[in-house]
């Protein structure tokens, strides 16, 4: 009887373990599928609202425009058709709200003639728009499809669909711009890149120095105090780091460099660097300590000094472990959201110096997801950013995996 019970008990445990393992795996796979299915919806869509078209005069030889060009035209930054491949003619913007601008002064002054032109309930608006478009060779009109007359005198301008290369290399990120949204993730990618790279440039030397000190120089008592303190650093919530950055680092940068605002890429790099330190220190220190004693003794027995031994034997021997630590540190920096969001200033522009505000991919997702309507273009674009982030961190983890497996091979 007892035997059967313990057998059943064993079976139940096995089933439970099996279940928890498979459930976890399924959840992870589902999340990835969800991420990519939401994120891939962006491509092949028009970056404008459904039911609206871009119309130009029939004589206009421009056939299509991309989102970035339209955005610049409507911002008044491109004012001549020549710049977008058309003839030399200045661009006239037309929006539904300012149709009366195209009336003569006389028409505008007289309410009766306005009604006559547009109709009581705007029923003559389509014809009116058609006439306006016909009359102005340089016009570009953003109108709803329902206001397009059967005998529309203009022609529809094609808007380029969103492509992967537009998304990755586009220089403008205006997800809520009107009439077209512009999804160029380059500023965000560069922002992430800059902040992470400089974080690691700052954290790696410091972390490596600390690791060498702890593993090779420090007295065991010092090491036994230092190590838990550094591991404690990893346990501080990132929002606290962000708060620290906001209160200490940001004003410091603002005063030191005499800037209008202190929320800059530099502030983000410093905070991320501090956050990456525990990872770098712990992993590097472990790598340094696993250098076989026989290697150190061999070097010392040849008359090398302690420092020569550290630089010529210990560091090369533990280099793959140190690299793994650095890459994991970068991985943490790339994915970090809250602290960066708090200190980098969040301007989605391509940074030229470290002393400018930048915006990273995770910060963008965190900041914008709340205001993006579910299923909309903006929402999908944020998921695409999530996919990019996922791919980057996956590459980082793969790199660590490859490097540490090579390390194991060398050790054996």
């Amino acid at each position, binding site marked *: 009887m007892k035997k059967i019970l313990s057998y059943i008990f064993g079976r139940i445990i096995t089933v439970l373990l099996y279940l928890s393992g498979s459930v976890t795996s399924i959840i992870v796979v589902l999340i990835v599928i969800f991420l990519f299915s939401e994120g891939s919806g962006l491509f092949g869509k028009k970056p404008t609202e459904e039911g609206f078209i871009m119309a130009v005069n029939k004589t206009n030889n421009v056939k299509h425009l991309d989102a970035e060009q339209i955005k610049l035209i409507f911002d008044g930054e491109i004012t001549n058709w020549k710049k977008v491949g058309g003839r030399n003619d200045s661009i006239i913007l037309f929006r539904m709200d300012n149709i009366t601008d195209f009336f003569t002064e006389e028409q505008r002054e007289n309410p009766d003639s306005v009604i006559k032109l547009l109709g009581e309930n705007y029923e003559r608006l389509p014809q009116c728009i058609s006439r306006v478009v016909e009359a102005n060779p340089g016009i570009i009109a953003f109108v709803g499809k329902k206001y397009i007359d059967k005998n529309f005198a203009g022609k529809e301008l094609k808007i380029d669909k969103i492509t992967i290369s537009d998304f990755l290399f586009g220089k403008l990120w205006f997800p809520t711009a009107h009439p077209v949204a512009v999804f160029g993730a380059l500023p965000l990618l560069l922002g992430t890149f800059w902040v992470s790279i400089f974080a690691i440039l700052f954290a790696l030397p410091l972390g490596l120095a600390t690791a060498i000190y702890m593993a090779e120089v420090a007295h*065991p008592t010092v090491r036994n105090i230092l190590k838990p303190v550094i591991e404690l650093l990893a346990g501080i919530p990132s929002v606290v780091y962000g708060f620290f950055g906001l209160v200490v680092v940001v004003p410091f940068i603002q005063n030191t460099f005499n800037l209008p605002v202190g929320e800059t890429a530099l502030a983000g790099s410093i905070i991320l660097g501090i956050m990456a330190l525990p990872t770098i220190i712990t992993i590097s220190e472990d790598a340094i300590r696993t250098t*076989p004693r*026989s*290697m*150190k*003794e*061999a*070097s*010392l*027995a*040849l*008359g*090398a*000094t302690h420092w*020569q031994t550290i630089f*010529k*034997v210990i560091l*090369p*021997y533990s280099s793959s472990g140190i690299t793994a630590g650095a890459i994991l540190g970068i991985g943490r920096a790339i994915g970090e959201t809250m602290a960066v969001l708090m200190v980098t200033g969040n301007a989605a522009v391509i940074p030229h110096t470290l002393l400018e505000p930048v915006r990273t991919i995770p910060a963008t997702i965190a900041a914008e997801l709340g205001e993006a309507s579910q299923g909309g273009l903006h929402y999908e674009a944020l998921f695409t950013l999530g996919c990019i982030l996922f791919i980057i961190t996956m590459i980082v983890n793969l790199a660590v995996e490859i490097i540490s497996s090579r390390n194991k091979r*060398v050790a054996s």
Partner: protein
Amino acid sequence: MYKIESKDVNLYYGEHHALKNISLQMKANTVTALIGPSGCGKSTYLRLLNRMNDLIENVRIEGTVLIDNKDIYARGIKIDELRKKVGMVFQKPNPFPKTIFENVAYGLRVNGISNKSYIEERVTRSLQNAALWEEVKDKLKKSAFELSGGQQQRLCIARALAIEPSIVLMDEPASALDPISTAKIEELIYELKDKYTIVIVTHNMQQAARVSDRTAFFYIGEVVEYNDTKEIFTNPKNQRTQNYITGRFG
């Protein structure tokens, strides 16, 4: 005059009294074998001669150790200078994860030698002296890990010889090797005697008998008997020595 001379050396690992009143003298260009059961202090004594024991915490040393009539534990002695003079070969082959060439050149480079042709010449000569040259001359740029265990150990000997020490300490240099490699190392030790003073720790009685001129028998931190190798093996004065070399304990 003796090359190495220790007088009443005591060594403590914390509370543990590991070496007790060791007094040994070794002449230049001789091979001295240190034998004895495990834990008897022979390796500790060997590591005393190039101050390798300094790496261990809680070590206390009393007495004097003279090399070329200089106290190597005196104040102001540069340990790295001492270790250039007193080379060491370890129990397990421990080449660096570098090329064969760089392994041998390492000692020269850390000594600040950067003349390329000089380094090449010294590396070649050291590999020749370690009887490894013929086997590796075509693959100097290959990793030292590609060599067999016996070759690696001879590489470690070449590495030690490259900085031209006058003393070579060997801590059971053949214990991890097969009989053929062991024979090669023993042959090598015999040849090296002309140029170097060699102190070798070994567990192998036959090896001690074959390669050494003098033998010291260590037992629980003491030197029980120190004499010409021939005398020790044919006519030991002490009963414990006799028991040990005839294999009755140890």
